[in-house]
């Protein structure tokens, strides 16, 4: 796993939303990781993970081999995977978990994969980028790089669903009292503010956004209102799909409900990037719906 400069290499599983809608997340993550000697290797030919709540809901017997193919690509690279989307995390980690747990399922899946000349072996591991930052890079090292502390900033942490749950697959401890994202936010000097329904879903997952977008936006509206009431300046999260719902959703909401939301939404590496002195432009924060207030740029 060691790179040339003694750092680490991971296969970066991009998925769909990160590279195709919010490349700022991709750029921010790659930049920060590189700064700590972590190389993000491209996974040539990787597809949609495929989305856990939709393909998993429609046909898990299709969902699984497509996920296994993505895992096999990383295995062929000899690398562990990292992701910047809870959906990708949900699918890849769960598929890996199920295939490791049920040998018959692995056999059946490999039979399908053999038609495209691939094989799932079970030799990779699926990591979430925030765990790499929290556990591999470490809070102390992150702290050293903070050049523009977020001292007066009140942050609403939003976990999304599939980073923490189900615990038996994710393995990050309690889903009711999480700490990883809070720790990462606090590294910047920002204040992590509790707000009503902090652990609630953004509303997009499980095909809900597609099933009824206005209804799913109502969840998003509630979250943003709650964060606003609690006095938060922005929302920081670890999921590209949540980012889509929370950021672009605000434009959709304003249209659907006649509201005028402009509540800043940042992927955690974008937030850390700002605190490390990277520019709004480098982090792609200027190419999304919501705007970043001066308070975060001081």
């Amino acid at each position, binding site marked *: 796993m060691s790179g040339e400069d003694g750092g680490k290499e991971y296969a970066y599983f991009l998925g769909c939303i990160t590279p195709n809608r919010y490349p700022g997340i991709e750029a921010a993550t790659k930049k920060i990781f590189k700064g700590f000697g972590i190389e993000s290797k491209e996974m040539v030919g990787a597809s949609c993970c495929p989305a856990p709540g939709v393909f998993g809901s429609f046909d898990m017997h*299709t969902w699984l081999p497509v996920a296994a193919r993505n895992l096999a690509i990383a295995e062929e690279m000899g690398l562990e995977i990292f992701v910047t989307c809870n959906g990708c995390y949900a699918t890849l980690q769960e598929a890996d978990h199920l295939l490791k747990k049920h040998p018959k399922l692995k056999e059946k899946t490999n039979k399908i994969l053999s*038609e495209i000349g691939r094989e799932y072996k079970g030799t990779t591991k699926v990591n979430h980028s925030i765990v790499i930052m929290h556990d591999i890079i470490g809070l102390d090292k992150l702290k050293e790089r903070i050049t523009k502390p977020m001292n007066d900033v009140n942050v609403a942490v939003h976990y999304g669903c599939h980073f923490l749950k189900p615990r038996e697959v994710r393995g990050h401890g309690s889903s009711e009292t999480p700490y990883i994202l809070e720790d990462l936010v606090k590294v910047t000097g920002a204040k992590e503010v509790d707000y009503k329904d902090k652990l609630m879903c953004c509303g997009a*997952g499980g095909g809900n956004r597609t099933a009824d977008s206005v209804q799913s936006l109502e969840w998003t509206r509630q979250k943003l209102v709650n964060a606003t009431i609690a006095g938060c300046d922005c929302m920081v999260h670890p999921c590209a799909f949540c980012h889509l719902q929370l950021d672009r959703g605000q434009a959709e909401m304003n249209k659907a409900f006649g509201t005028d939301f402009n509540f800043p939404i940042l992927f955690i590496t974008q937030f850390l990037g700002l605190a490390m002195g990277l520019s709004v432009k480098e982090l792609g924060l200027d*190419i999304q719906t919501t705007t970043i207030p001066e308070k975060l740029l001081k």
Partner: protein
Amino acid sequence: MGTLYEDMVDYGGEVFGREHLETLRECVQCGKCTGGCPSGRNTALRTRKLMQMALLDMREEIFNAPELWFCSTCFTCYERCPKGVKTTDIIRTLRNLAAKEGHMSVPHRMIGVYVMKTGHAVPIGPAQMELREAVGLESQPPTAQHPQNKEQLEQVQKLFRATNYDAMIDFDWDTMNLRGMDKGGKK
């Protein structure tokens, strides 16, 4: 076709393990699932009721209820269920059975169309390529959608054929769209 319970355990059991889904029978109807359900606050979804209906073999009622699709699979109930009923996975499996019997909306089917066409549920377009360049990235990542990776895309397509997903959503490989629809059109 057995009872809904049997079908669910058979179908989902292959992936999750049968015992995972057999937890449905342990449900004590305590309501803790619905009690904390973010969807239930906004929609007609009543997870507790759904569990009971599944045990009562109310197949048509479940499959025809729009709220079956209003679960965001957030796993809150799954984590809290005192009896360890694997609620979210049971719902996912029920949806699989519903989809197999044709209960699938056009927008939901379209997601499959995008993946079969491009390898991605959310494909890239020229505008997004510009965004990528703006943050210093290659205009297109080397994923399955990249024009140079046609073979990779074909692999993905093969998998969808191998598992009959194409037939399930009535996908037309000639038009690369749902059968009977104009290109890019929506019902």
